[in-house]
C-alpha cells in the first residue's frame, strides 16, 4: 500500500497545453460552465445538448433513489501481475488514478433502487485510466452479476471504457470471457441486464459484457466501436463516414435499441425494471 502513495506529481499544476479546452468548456459550442451548473444539468450542455462525460458517483446519484445505494466490493484493488513498466510503472499509474478520481478502480458496483424498483448497478468511470478493464473491473462486474442473481433483481450496467487494460497483459483480455460467463450465469438465474453505453464504449468492453444486455441503449453522440476511427483510418486508409462508430450509426445498423438523452435515462431504467421484475412479485 505504501508504494501507492509515493507518486510523482510534478506536472499537476502545469498549464494546459495550448488548444486543449477546459473540461467544463463544451467542445461543440464553447459554452463554459461551473461544476455545480453542470452537475444540476446532469452534465449536459444547456446550450447545444452536448453530453459531457459523467463521473460514476454523479451517475449513481442521478439514477438511484436517494439513500438507496449500497456500494459493494469497494475495497478491491489492482495488483501488478506482470511488474509492468512502460514509460512509468503500472503501480504509479494506479496510485495517480486513485488520487485523481477518489475511486479505487474504474467501476463502482452496488445495490440500488430506481423509481422504487430494486436493482444492481455497475457503473464505469472513464477518468480512472480511461475506464480500462483489468482484473478488478472484471471481478467487480462479475460480483454485480452474482449480487443481482442472489437478490433476484435485474442488473443495470453503465459503461465508459477504452477497452482492456494493457498493463495487465493477457489477464486483461481474460476479463472478456470472465464477464461474459458472469452474464450467462445471471441469465441462467432468470435475471435480465440493461446495458447503457456511454461515451466511449469501445474495444474489450464492447466485445464482452456491454453487448450482452437484454436491452441496449446509448447516449447521444457516444462512440461505440470495437476499433476507434483513428486506428481504422490508419490501418485501412478507408474514408470514414461522418458518424462512424457513433451511437446514431449503431442504431441505424441495428446494434442498439434506443438513443436516450441523459434526462430520459432514469424513467427508462425504471420502466425496464418494472417490465423485467418477475410477474407477481
Amino acid at each position, binding site marked *: 500500500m505504501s508504494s501507492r502513495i509515493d507518486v510523482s506529481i510534478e506536472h499537476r499544476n502545469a498549464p494546459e497545453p495550448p488548444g486543449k479546452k477546459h473540461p467544463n468548456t463544451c467542445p461543440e459550442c464553447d459554452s463554459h460552465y461551473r461544476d455545480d451548473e453542470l452537475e444540476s444539468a446532469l452534465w449536459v450542455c444547456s446550450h447545444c445538448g452536448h453530453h459531457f462525460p459523467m463521473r460514476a458517483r454523479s451517475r449513481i446519484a442521478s439514477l438511484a433513489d436517494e439513500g438507496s445505494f449500497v456500494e459493494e466490493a469497494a475495497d478491491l484493488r489492482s495488483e501488478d501481475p506482470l511488474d509492468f513498466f512502460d514509460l512509468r510503472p503500472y503501480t504509479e499509474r494506479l496510485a495517480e488514478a486513485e488520487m485523481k478520481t477518489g475511486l479505487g478502480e474504474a467501476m463502482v458496483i452496488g445495490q440500488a433502487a430506481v423509481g422504487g424498483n430494486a436493482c444492481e448497478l455497475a457503473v464505469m468511470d472513464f477518468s480512472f485510466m480511461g475506464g480500462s478493464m483489468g482484473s478488478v473491473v472484471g471481478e467487480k462486474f462479475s460480483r454485480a452479476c452474482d449480487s443481482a442473481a442472489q437478490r433476484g433483481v435485474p442488473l443495470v450496467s453503465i459503461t465508459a471504457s477504452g477497452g482492456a487494460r494493457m498493463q495487465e497483459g*493477457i489477464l486483461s483480455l481474460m476479463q472478456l470471457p470472465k464477464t*461474459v460467463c458472469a452474464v450467462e450465469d445471471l441469465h441462467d438465474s432468470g435475471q435480465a441486464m440493461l446495458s447503457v453505453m456511454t461515451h466511449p464504449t469501445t474495444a474489450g468492453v464492447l466485445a464482452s459484457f456491454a453487448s450482452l444486455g437484454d436491452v441496449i441503449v446509448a447516449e447521444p453522440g457516444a462512440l461505440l466501436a470495437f476499433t476507434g476511427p483513428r*486506428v481504422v483510418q490508419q490501418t485501412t486508409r478507408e474514408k470514414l463516414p461522418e458518424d462512424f462508430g457513433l451511437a446514431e450509426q449503431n442504431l441505424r445498423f441495428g446494434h442498439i435499441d434506443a438513443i436516450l438523452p441523459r434526462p430520459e435515462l432514469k424513467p427508462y431504467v425504471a420502466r425496464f425494471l418494472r417490465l423485467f421484475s418477475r410477474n407477481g412479485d
Partner: protein
Amino acid sequence: MATDHELRLRERLTRLRNVNLLGGAKLSGELEKLQRQLDRLQAGPTDEEIWRSVELARHQDRPYTLDYVARLFEDWVELHGDRGRADDAALVIGIGRFADRTVALVGNQKGRDIKERTHRNFGMAYPEGYRKAIRLMELAELHHFPLISLVDIPGAYPGVAAEQHGQGGAIAHSQAHMARLGVPIVACVIGEGGSGGAIATALADRVLMQENAIYTVISPEGCAAILWRDAGEAKKAAAAFKPDAVHCLELGVIDAIVPEPEGGAQTDPDGAAKLLGESLQEALEELESASPDELKRRRRARFRSLGVYA
C-alpha cells in the same frame, strides 16, 4: 507465481517416473514432454526468447488451421457461410472425423501467397466470420459433437464495414455461445492469439497453446504505439506484457503447452501436427465423461477465476 503449475507438473512427472513397468515409448515421450515444460517454466524465457516466439508465431511457413486439418482429420467437410450475409474466408468451419469421433472444428485461416492472403483478409475475421462460428457451435450442440477451435489471428478486422456490421457484438456473442455449450470444447492457440479476435473462439474447457505461439491483449506494435508512442518499440512492449506460452501457463490463462518440433512448427509440419493431435485427443478424452451441465459449470468457473487483485 509459477508454483501452482510447477507443483502440478512435478507431481505428474514423479508419478510417471515411478511407473517403471509401463515404461514404453509413449511414456518416455510423455516424460520428456513434461520435463521440457518444467525446465522452461523454471528458467523463464528471456526478452530475446519472447521476441523469437513473436517471430515464429507469425512465420510465413508456420502451419495454419487447414494444414493441421489435412493431417489430423478424416472425412473432412468444410462448411461455408453465416446463413445471413457472407462467407468469411478468414475463419473456416467444418466437421470431420478426429481420433474416431465426429468433431466440429472452427479455425482462423491465413493465406500462403498474396492472392490467398488477400482472399483470407490476412486471417482477420469480420463479424460475419464470428456469426459463421456461432452457426457451427449450434450445429455441434444439436448433434453432440465436441468442438475444437484453432486460434491464429492477428486481430479482428478493424474496418468500416466490420464496425457497421457489429464487430464488438459479434465477438461478445461468439463467447456467450461458447459459455452455453453442453459439449466439450478444446481450443489451441497455434500462432497469433490476437486480442478480442482470438478470445471470440477461445472460451473453451481446455485451452492449449503451442510452444511458440503468442497470446496477447493487443499486438506488440499496437501496445508500443500507445504506451511508448512509437510502434518501433514493439520488442520492449512484448517483453513487458509477456505474450509467450510459458507466461500464459504461469498466469493460468492456458492449461498446457503443446510442444513443437525443434526450431518451430514450420520446420516439420507433420511432426507439429502429430504433437498437436496427441494433445487435442488427450484433452478431449479428459472431458468426455462430464455431463453437459458439469462442463458448462466448470468452464464458466475456470474463466471466472482469472485475474489478480487484492
